[in-house]
């Protein structure tokens, strides 16, 4: 696969991150290492040693996939969120962030794979592989941001569960906790929130499992502790606060598609040619900018991902 040669080396750290943010680095998962060592996880011989099972945010690798664009300020990234579990207004997730209980956290892996089970968060994060990736994020509502995520590539993680030949799709689910999550008290969406990918999309090197942003632990309102980032798809595909991963043979149902099948497709690749029935997708407002920008096919990642959809009618498979 042809991968765009990135110019990320031109990006100075200071351009990306406010200094104060880096000064304030915290360790991820202060949960004691001894406890996590006695995890519920089935013991997997091929599993790399997890060690202290905490992410050292001082040792984040750089990625060639990072784009060379000015990042959206931390304040905006963490105060303007669509995370309906924490409220419908975009300011709600930050206000209600404390209602999301992220410790302890485990993820159930099930379906068409050889190594199903209940895994600890730490099992997803191979030490040394955590890197920063500066990606565009394009919301279906026609606004966008540039976010320096911290995370690991999704594909190698999924492979560790040894998906079988029947695994054609992957379904993800967000935490279901209506007692604590204010948004889940009303049936605005079918809870828990569900998303899905075709297996080749999930295995694409751009697909990221993020655990932080701006060099820090993931804020709750951005989908702590573990979320997907699919930069060439509309933001709602990048499911937050994942508690379940299921390999399936059939295309899984996805929350927004259930709610509005005419408005939100399974693929939901960013596509300026296919309007949302109620608004145009041709342009977007980059948060912090005055004039709208042209929206790019696949959100500017066409060189990397377009081949996966060769021969498909993207107007039908929107």
């Amino acid at each position, binding site marked *: 696969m042809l991968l765009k040669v990135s110019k990320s080396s031109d990006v100075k750290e200071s351009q990306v991150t406010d200094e104060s943010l880096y000064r304030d680095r915290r360790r991820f998962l202060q949960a004691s290492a001894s406890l996590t060592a006695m995890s519920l996880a089935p013991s997997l011989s091929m599993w790399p040693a997890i060690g202290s099972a905490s992410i050292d945010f001082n040792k984040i690798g750089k990625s060639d996939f990072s784009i060379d664009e000015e990042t959206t300020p931390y304040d905006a990234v963490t105060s303007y969120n669509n995370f309906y579990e924490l409220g419908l207004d975009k300011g709600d997730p930050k206000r209600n962030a404390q209602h999301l209980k992220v410790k302890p956290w485990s993820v159930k892996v099930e379906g068409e794979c050889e190594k199903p089970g209940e895994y600890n968060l730490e099992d997803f994060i191979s030490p040394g592989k955590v890197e920063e990736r500066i990606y565009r994020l394009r919301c279906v509502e026609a*606004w966008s941001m540039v976010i320096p995520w911290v995370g690991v590539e999704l594909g190698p993680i999924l492979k560790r569960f040894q998906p079988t030949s029947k695994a054609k799709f992957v379904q993800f689910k967000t935490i279901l906790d209506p007692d604590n999550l204010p948004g889940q008290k009303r049936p605005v969406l079918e809870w828990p929130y569900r998303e899905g990918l075709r297996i080749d999309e999930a295995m694409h090197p751009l697909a990221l499992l993020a655990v932080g942003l701006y060099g820090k632990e993931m804020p709750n309102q951005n989908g702590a502790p573990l979320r997907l980032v699919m930069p060439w798809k509309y933001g709602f595909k990048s499911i937050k606060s994942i508690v379940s991963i299921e390999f399936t043979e059939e295309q899984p149902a996805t929350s927004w598609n259930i709610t509005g099948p005419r408005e939100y497709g399974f693929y939901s690749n960013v596509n300026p040619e296919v309007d949302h029935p109620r608004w145009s997708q041709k342009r977007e407002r980059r948060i912090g900018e005055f004039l709208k920008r042209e929206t790019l096919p696949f959100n500017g990642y066409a060189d990397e991902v377009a081949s996966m959809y060769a021969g498909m009618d993207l107007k039908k498979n929107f």
Partner: protein
Amino acid sequence: MSTSSAEVFVSTPFAGKFVKSALFTLLLIPLAIPIYWFYTNALGANPIETINRWTGDWALRVLLLTLAVSPLRRLTGWNNFIQYRRMLGLFAFFYVCMHISSYIILDQFFDFGAIFDDVIKRPFITAGFTSFLMLIPLAVTSTKKMVERLQHRWIILHRLIYIIGMVVVLHFWWMVKIDTREPAIYAGILAVLLGYRLFYYIKRKI
């Protein structure tokens, strides 16, 4: 109708003027607030959206206030309410103009191609635009001279406001992605205000 003390109060020219100025000032507050937010950097991550929604909300709210004048007058017998109706209506139109300016200037920055597309393709914008078109003749004929000149035709023309109210609620309803609570509240208020008129009309006929 016997003369209530309230009526006496606003009937004195001085008090009436005072109430009017106070109301005028009050109605400017929704304009002052986003200006204050602008200077204190409190418009949020997407200031244009904040302004667009704020002005849209207040256009609708003042419009509903205007529609509340007649029912209130009938219910309280306080006829002097009527002297504020024109000002309320014009303020509603003022906030509509702010809302539309914010859309044309801030949101689209005079991209008339995109605006045209929106108006013909997006049902919620079509509804907003239609209500704006219907509001123009009402604003134009709001002067005393026009009221006198048009006489009972003025009353008929200004019944357009009932339809405008409904189309604006539709504009809001069609805009939201999923959460219809807010437009539903406005729809409820509008239903009460219009329902009262219908009730009164039927009662008078019987």
